[in-house]
């Protein structure tokens, strides 16, 4: 633990031998599926005519909603609402194929299976659909105005309204010496992993079983959904998550229509069927995030201490709510960051629009919360004429105040209670790292050259490693090799390396003798998934515990065999030996052999375990409460999340003429508890920062008033190339262990992206001298902001 070990999975990736879902079943004449999608944001389907498709060579099936009930009754029902919430009184989910209405441009209408994707798309072009156009509701303002409804039976377009309060914020604000009001706005963006979604399914008629591969963040979730929707027992369905080309949150939502339609087709046609989402589909038919409008009222004292904070916001969740209220709940709670307002009230409405649904995108509501809180801090500093870091410092939860209970309920339904952290220390580190105190001199120096620069700072706290649980299975084979399985999936985080490090450490085996499998329901059927920066915390801890159990058994058997006390044994590089007596030793392979009493020998080694070789005739071969085999299995289920934290600072230059925004320096201080593999953690931070730069300065979903997504391609949705990303990101670590898990670790996956909107707004505001209220921001928008300042 703590070593920057090179990743084992890279050998495969670097040789082009990764197995992503579209690499499955290549060359075995799998059939390929394609989906007809609505060109309209809001319309009633009057008629679907597929007659021209049937006579097309190479087409094997074409289905609309009308066909689903006959194939499997539950398929004609709406898709599941994954995370119900008592206040989500108007939750809605779509059908696998639209029944009689489409509510966003891109909603699935018909499903075609053909010899290859080319022919499948030929078929789509022959399907004719008659629509009655309905007025689309696009944007938060239109949804709140509610002149038109997304769903006829959802009044005011409001899916849910949730309020939480700790103390009496409104009274506190009324009595506060100073008050401010802010109105803020954040646009939509999306994950855009380089690999889109994909599903392959194979029905084995001989075994009466279904095997499916999906590019998902939860194979157990997909498995359960397939079983229910296809009317199969869970035991008849296996789901494998192969290599995944990035997830960033969007692949945690499930089941996507194709995750059900492809298995359905595999069973109906008796053929292997594959669906590979293309880029345009990923834009118009998968999921987005981020869009919120926020209204903030704050009361504070002369030092900037928060006496009362009252936040209202409106969360655009798109056309459906399969993932419940997770994103806005996270915004409403994580908004508090490292601060302790004396009273806090938050109320949000999660509202419908005729746009692609919203599910978590890396950060999952935290970037919006961070934006609200940090904009408020900057506004207070500006108002009081204080340094922005001072105002933050007086509001920090102090190191001796942990555990700190905010008196709110978090996304996992448990108290929002921070376990540990050291925010003052982080602030000192980030100031040193970015050169905060030296900046005024630098700014003056630049100004003398006619150049505009600004510095920004943003702090965040991230609840990571939420439950309910993860499990792990550790199996020491008679070869001495260790096979580890955990149920959650991997999208590039290097789990095969990081988890192997944990097992090697705990078990005393060589790192290269440990093999880790993730996301295969055949190896670990009980799991939740990879989201909320939980993999290392949850599966890491479970693996640690499972390895401990295996180790206990190793020592027990070895002690027996060597006739010594367990306490005198040590395991080094896969060999159990008596401390200070190396010749008295036994290797793990042999221990594994001995762990499984045999009647039949199948090789030299196994002879040692046969009935005439071992065992006390006076006892049963397998002792009471024991079981054969050298395995350890355990689950980790924490009481609550563990809270990582960090601070970002950035120095930007804005061109006085062209309004171009250039990043001069980016600094990150990050505290995710103990580090398992610093190299991997820094990689996560780099990626998060880059995604944050994209989200703050380049990426947005540009919908027009008719609900058409105008930039549904990489040509116009501007993911940064290396040329747009700072050359070098300064990183400093703080390691405040979590008391909640055996490894003292916290999650690191999302941190890098959380403060970006806030930190860039802060820096651009500092450079320009006027308030930034909306993100992302483009040079064109900055230019117009300057114009509107002049015209005041």
């Amino acid at each position, binding site marked *: 633990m703590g070593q920057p070990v090179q990743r084992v999975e890279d050998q495969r990736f670097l040789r082009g031998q990764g197995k992503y879902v579209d690499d499955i079943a290549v060359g075995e004449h799998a059939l390929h599926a394609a989906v007809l999608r609505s060109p309209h944001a809001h319309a009633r389907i009057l008629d679907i005519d597929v007659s021209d498709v049937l006579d097309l060579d190479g087409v094997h099936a074409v289905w609309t909603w009308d066909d689903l009930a006959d194939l499997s009754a539950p398929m004609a029902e709406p898709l599941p609402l994954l995370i119900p919430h008592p206040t989500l009184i108007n939750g809605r989910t779509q059908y696998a194929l639209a029944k009689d209405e489409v509510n966003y441009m891109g909603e699935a209408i018909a499903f075609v299976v053909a010899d290859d994707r080319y022919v499948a798309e030929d078929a789509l072009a022959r399907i004719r659909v008659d629509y009655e156009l309905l007025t689309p509701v696009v944007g938060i303002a239109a949804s709140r105005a509610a002149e038109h409804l997304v769903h006829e039976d959802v009044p005011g377009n409001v899916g849910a309204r949730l309020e939480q309060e700790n103390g009496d914020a409104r009274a506190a604000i009324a009595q506060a010496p100073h008050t401010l009001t802010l109105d803020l706005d954040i646009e939509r963006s999306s994950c855009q992993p380089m690999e889109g979604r994909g599903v392959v399914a194979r029905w084995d008629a001989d075994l009466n079983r279904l095997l499916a591969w999906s590019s998902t963040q939860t194979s157990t979730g997909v498995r359960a959904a397939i079983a229910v929707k296809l009317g199969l027992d869970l035991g008849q369905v296996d789901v494998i998550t192969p290599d995944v080309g990035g997830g960033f949150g969007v692949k945690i939502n499930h089941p996507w229509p194709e995750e059900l339609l492809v298995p359905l087709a595999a069973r109906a046609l008796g053929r292997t069927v594959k669906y590979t989402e293309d880029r*345009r589909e990923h834009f118009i038919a998968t999921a987005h995030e981020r869009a919120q409008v926020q209204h903030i009222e704050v009361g504070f004292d002369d030092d900037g201490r928060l006496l009362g904070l009252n936040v209202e916001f409106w969360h655009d969740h798109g056309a459906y709510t399969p993932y419940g209220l997770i994103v806005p709940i996270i915004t409403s709670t994580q908004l508090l960051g490292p601060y302790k307002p004396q009273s806090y009230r938050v109320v949000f409405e999660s509202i419908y629009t005729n746009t692609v649904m919203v599910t978590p995108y890396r950060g999952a509501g935290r970037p919006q919360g961070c934006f609200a809180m940090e904009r408020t801090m900057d506004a207070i500093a500006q108002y009081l004429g204080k340094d922005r870091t001072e105002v933050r410092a007086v509001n920090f939860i102090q190191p001796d105040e942990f555990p700190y209970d905010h008196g709110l309920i978090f996304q996992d339904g448990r108290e929002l209670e921070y376990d540990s952290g050291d925010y003052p220390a982080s602030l000192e580190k980030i100031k040193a790292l970015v050169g905060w105190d030296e900046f005024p001199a630098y700014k003056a120096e630049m100004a003398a050259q006619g150049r505009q620069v600004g510095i920004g700072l943003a702090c965040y706290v991230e609840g990571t490693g939420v439950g309910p649980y993860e499990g792990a299975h550790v199996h020491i084979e008679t070869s001495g090799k260790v096979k580890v399985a955990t149920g959650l999936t991997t999208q590039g985080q290097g789990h095969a390396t990081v988890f192997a490090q944990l097992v090697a450490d705990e078990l005393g085996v060589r790192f290269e003798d440990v093999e880790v499998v993730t996301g295969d329901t055949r190896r670990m059927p009980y799991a939740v998934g990879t989201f909320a920066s939980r993999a290392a915390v949850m599966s890491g801890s479970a693996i640690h515990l499972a390895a401990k159990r295996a180790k206990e058994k190793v020592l027990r058997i070895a002690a027996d065999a060597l006739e010594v006390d367990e306490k005198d044994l040590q395991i080094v590089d896969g060999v159990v030996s008596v401390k200070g007596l190396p010749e008295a030793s036994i290797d793990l392979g042999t221990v594994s052999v001995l762990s499984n009493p045999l009647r039949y020998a199948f090789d030299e080694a196994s002879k040692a375990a046969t009935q005439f070789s071992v065992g006390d005739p006076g006892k049963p071969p397998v002792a009471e409460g024991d079981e054969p085999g050298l395995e350890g299995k355990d689950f980790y289920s924490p009481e609550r999340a563990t809270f990582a934290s960090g601070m970002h600072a950035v120095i930007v230059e804005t061109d006085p003429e062209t309004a171009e925004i250039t990043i001069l320096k980016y600094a990150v201080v990050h505290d995710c508890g103990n580090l398992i593999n610093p190299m991997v953690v820094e990689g996560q931070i780099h990626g998060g920062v880059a995604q944050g730069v994209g989200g703050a300065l380049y990426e947005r979903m540009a919908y027009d008033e*008719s609900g058409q997504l105008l930039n549904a391609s990489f040509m116009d949705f501007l993911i940064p190339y290396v040329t747009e990303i700072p050359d070098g990101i300064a990183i400093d670590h703080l390691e405040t262990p979590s008391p909640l898990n055996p490894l003292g670790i916290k999650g690191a996956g999302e941190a890098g992206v959380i403060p970006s909107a806030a930190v860039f707004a802060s820096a651009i505001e500092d450079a320009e001298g006027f308030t930034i209220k909306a993100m992302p921001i483009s040079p064109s928008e900055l230019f117009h902001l300057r114009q509107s300042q002049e015209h005041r």
Partner: protein
Amino acid sequence: MKISGSNVIDQPVDKVWDALLDPRVLVATIPGCERLETTGDNQYAMTVTAGVAAIKGTYNGSCALSDLHEHQSLVMTLSGAGAPGTVDATVNVAFSEPAPGQTQIAYDADAVVGGMVGGVGQRMLSSVSKRMAGEFFGNVGTAISGGGRAGSAASVVETADAPGVFSAPAKVGGIGSQDDFVKGIVVGAGLVVLGVVIGGIFGRRRS
């Protein structure tokens, strides 16, 4: 998106009005219209080829004339769908008589462009619609000055085995007599824009 314009024709209103309700005239004058089928009173299904440069696509469209106030106004509801996308337009057409024997036609189209085109090409619409309007009126000029065309209404053939199905001679090019052209403007507006937009996409990559 909105497309609007007006135009004066040296023909009396009643003649223009009658021509407007004649499918033979429609098929001959809608730019790129290859086939037109009567599906009901003043309702037609048609196949139109539209696009710019070499980037053309074939679209199945429908056109319905409603709210007929004889010699005064009508509403034309258009929809076209092809592999690249869809366009749905409502065109309000108003007739007036600026001078005896003349007809002024004002049209005001509101088009919604959807599908792939909506996703990657819509931002070309404004410049494209401007260009289309220019082309329409240019053609009107030609028509008025007597510039004929191969497939004028006269040469439209009604398919024998399928009554009510009209097909224009291959390769619709120029413009028929001036009154015929009126419908070219109004009916064409919605559909042609779609095709032109598609050309717009070409702008987003390098040859």
